[in-house]
C-alpha cells in the first residue's frame, strides 16, 4: 500500500507534504508557497504550511553560472551546495566565506538562514559576503536585489527564511586560502567561565574557533569541554597534495528512542572529554574533519529515535555578562536536558540581515531528543533567554512560541513591514511562519 508522503527537517519530525523537484527550479517556483534546499534546517522552516501539499526543491538547480578567478566572485543557482563549493574550490585556493557545521546545505539555504560559523567573530554571517541574489517574489516577478538594488528587500531576505521570495541565484565572494589544509589546536577547558575567556582570547589570533561542552557536568566543572581553533595552513607547513575526500559511514536504520538517554550521554560525554590527552593538541588536519565532524557519519539524525529531535540554539548577549551562560547551563542541567552535542561559540557584530540570528555574545547550541517534556524545556529556556536579552535561531527551531519569539526580536516589525510590501496577501509561507509569525495556514 502506498504510504502518504511526508517531509521533515533534519530533526525528523514529519508533516504531510512532498517536494517538487526539477532542474528548472525557476518554473516550479511559480506556484510554490515555499522553497527548500537540502532540508538541513532542524525544525519546520523548510516544511509546507498545513493544507499545502508541496514545496519547491532547489537541489537539482545546482549550476555554477560564473566564477571570476581574480575577484573570487561566484554566481550559482540556489541549489548549488557548500559540499560542491568546497570540493571544487579548495584545490583552487578559495574557500566559503563562512564555516557552518555541515556542508550539506545549498547557497539558497545559506542566504535564507543567513548562516554563520566558526569564523563569525571575525567574518560575520554569510550575508556579509553576498553580492546579490535573484529572487522570485510573491507576485511571480523575478527581482535582482543587492545593497544597491531594492536594499530593503535584500536586508529582509538575508535570514528571512525564504519568506520574502524564492531564492533562484546567489552571487557571493569567496576568500582566498593559502593551502587546502587546516592548522588546528584543541584544548581541554575546565568550566564555563574559562571557556568564555578562552574563546575571547583566541578570537583575535584565530579565524576559526568553537567549543564542545559536556552539558551534563554540574558544580565546579559545569561547562567543561574542548575548545577547538584553527586557521588555513601556510604553503610551507602543509603537504603539497590536496586532501582526499573521506569515506562516510552511515547510520543504517532509525535507532530506538532509548539509545540517547541520560546515561548513554553521560558515558559518551565523559569519554569524549577524558580521551582528549594531552590537555593541548596541535596538528595539521583535513578541512572536512575540522569544519564538519558531524558530516562524517551520514544520516546521524537517525540516532535520536523515531520521535526525532530538535536543536536549541540561542545567543546570550555580551551585555548579559559571563553569568548568563552559567545561568543557562544551570537551568539546562537542572531540567535534565541531556545532549551529546552542545556547541558554544562567541559571536561578532550583528549582520545586515533583518532576521539574522547572531549578535555580539555567546551562542549555545544543543541537540535535544523529543520527549513529552521537550516543549516545557524549550519554554523554560526561552524565558531565560528573553530575560537575558538573547534570541533563538529560526533555522533550528521547532518549539518556540510566537509570543516568545516576538519578545526576543525587536527587528520583527520592520521585517514584517518590508515583507508586507512585497507580499501583501501573505502568499509565501512555511509551517514555521504559520506557527511563529501567525501566517494563515
Amino acid at each position, binding site marked *: 500500500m502506498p504510504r502518504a508522503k511526508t517531509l521533515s527537517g533534519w530533526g525528523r519530525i514529519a508533516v504531510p507534504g512532498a*517536494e*517538487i523537484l*526539477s*532542474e528548472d527550479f525557476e518554473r516550479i517556483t511559480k506556484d510554490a508557497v515555499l522553497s527548500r534546499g537540502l532540508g538541513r534546517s532542524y525544525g519546520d522552516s523548510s516544511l509546507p504550511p498545513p493544507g499545502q501539499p508541496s514545496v519547491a526543491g532547489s537541489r537539482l538547480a545546482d*549550476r555554477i*553560472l*560564473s*566564477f571570476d578567478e581574480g575577484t573570487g566572485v561566484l554566481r550559482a543557482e540556489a541549489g548549488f551546495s557548500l559540499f560542491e563549493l568546497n570540493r*571544487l574550490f579548495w584545490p583552487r585556493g578559495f574557500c566559503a566565506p563562512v564555516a557552518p557545521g555541515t556542508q550539506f546545505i545549498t547557497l539558497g539555504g545559506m542566504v535564507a538562514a543567513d548562516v554563520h560559523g566558526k569564523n563569525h567573530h571575525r567574518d560575520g554571517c554569510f550575508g556579509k559576503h553576498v553580492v546579490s541574489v535573484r529572487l522570485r517574489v510573491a507576485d511571480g516577478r523575478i527581482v535582482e536585489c543587492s545593497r544597491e538594488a531594492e536594499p530593503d528587500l535584500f536586508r529582509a531576505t538575508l535570514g528571512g527564511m525564504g519568506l520574502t521570495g524564492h531564492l533562484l541565484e546567489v552571487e557571493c565572494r569567496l576568500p582566498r586560502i593559502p593551502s587546502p589544509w587546516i592548522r588546528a589546536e584543541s584544548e581541554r577547558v575546565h568550566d564555563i567561565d574559562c571557556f568564555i575567556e578562552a574563546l575571547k582570547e583566541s578570537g583575535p589570533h584565530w579565524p576559526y574557533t568553537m567549543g564542545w561542552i559536556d552539558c551534563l557536568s554540574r558544580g565546579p566543572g559545569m561547562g567543561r569541554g574542548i575548545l577547538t581553533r584553527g586557521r588555513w595552513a601556510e604553503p610551507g607547513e602543509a603537504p603539497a597534495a590536496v586532501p582526499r575526500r573521506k569515506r562516510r559511514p552511515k547510520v543504517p536504520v532509525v535507532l530506538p528512542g532509548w539509545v540517547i538517554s541520560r546515561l548513554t550521554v553521560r558515558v559518551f560525554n565523559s569519554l569524549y572529554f577524558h580521551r582528549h590527552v594531552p590537555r593541548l593538541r596541535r596538528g595539521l588536519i583535513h578541512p572536512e574533519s575540522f569544519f564538519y565532524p558531524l558530516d562524517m557519519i551520514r544520516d546521524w539524525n537517525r540516532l535520536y529515535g523515531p520521535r526525532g529531535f530538535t536543536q536549541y540554539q540561542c545567543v546570550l548577549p555580551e551585555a548579559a555578562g559571563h553569568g548568563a551562560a552559567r545561568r543557562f547551563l544551570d537551568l539546562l542541567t537542572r531540567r535534565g536536558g541531556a545532549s551529546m552535542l552542545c556547541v558554544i561559540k562567541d559571536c561578532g557584530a550583528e549582520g545586515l540581515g533583518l532576521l539574522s540570528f547572531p549578535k555580539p555574545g555567546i551562542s549555545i547550541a544543543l541537540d535535544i531528543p523529543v520527549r513529552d517534556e521537550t516543549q516545557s524545556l524549550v519554554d523554560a529556556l526561552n524565558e531565560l533567554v528573553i530575560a537575558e536579552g538573547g534570541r533563538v535561531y529560526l533555522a533550528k527551531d521547532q518549539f518556540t512560541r510566537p509570543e516568545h519569539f516576538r519578545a526576543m526580536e525587536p527587528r520583527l516589525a520592520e521585517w514584517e513591514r518590508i515583507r508586507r510590501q512585497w507580499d501583501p496577501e501573505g502568499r509565501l509561507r512555511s509551517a514555521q511562519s504559520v506557527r511563529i509569525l501567525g501566517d494563515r495556514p
Partner: protein
Amino acid sequence: MRVAFLGATKGMGRALARRMAERGDVLFLLGRDPRDLERSARDLEARGGSRRVGTARCDLEHAATLGPALDSAEAALGGLDAVVVTAGLFGTQDRLETDTALLARLLTVNFAHTILFCEAARKRLLARGGGTLCVFSSVAGDRGRKPVVLYGAAKAGLTRYLEGLDHRFRGQGLHVVCVKPGFVRTSMTAGLPEPPFAGDPEDVARVVLRAIDRGTPVVYVPPIWRWVMLVIRLLPRAVMRRVGF
C-alpha cells in the same frame, strides 16, 4: 577526449558531463533549449578550468536537426572521439496507456530518432577511424514488465540496436557502450516510489566514465542492477504474470 554530448543539461547526463569536464575532456553540448544549454556550458567551463564549451541546437523530436548538430560539434571540437546520448523522454505506464500523443512522441524520440542520431554519430566516428558511442538505454528493456510495457519496448529496441552495432563495427574501431540504469534519483524519477538499490547520478557518472574509458559494451548502474536483472530475466513467465514489477 573530445565529446559531443546530447542530454548534458539534466540528471545523469549533467553528472557525467561534469565528471568529464573536471578531468579535462573537451565538451560540446547538444540539446533543445539554447538558454539551458548555455547555462550548462558555463557550469562546465567553471568546473573544467575555463576550457570553452560550445553548444548547438539538437532536438530528438526533429530528425532534421540531428546531423547538422553533430557537424557543428565536429567542427568546433576539431574532430570527435566520443558521442554520448543521455537524452530521452519518460512517461509512467498509466500515463502512456491513456495519452496516445505522448506515447507516439516517446516511441519516436527514445527509439526511432535516437537510432537516427546514433547512425549519424556512428558514421562520423567511423570516418575518423573509430571512437566511442555511449548511449543510455534502460533496465526497462531487459524484460517485458507490467510497469514499463511501453517505455521498456522502446528501450529494448534501442538495446538490441546497440548490441548489433557493437557486433558489426567493433572490428573497425567503434566502441559502443550501452548504459542500463536501474532506478536513479533524478528529476525524471522524482515522485515515483523508490525501489531498493536506488542510486544517485554522481555514482552513475563514475561507473559510466570508467566503462567509456574501457569500452565496456554493456554497463548496469548502479552495478547491483546487473544481478537484479539477471534474476528478473530468469523468472518464468508464469511468475512474471503474477508479480507487480
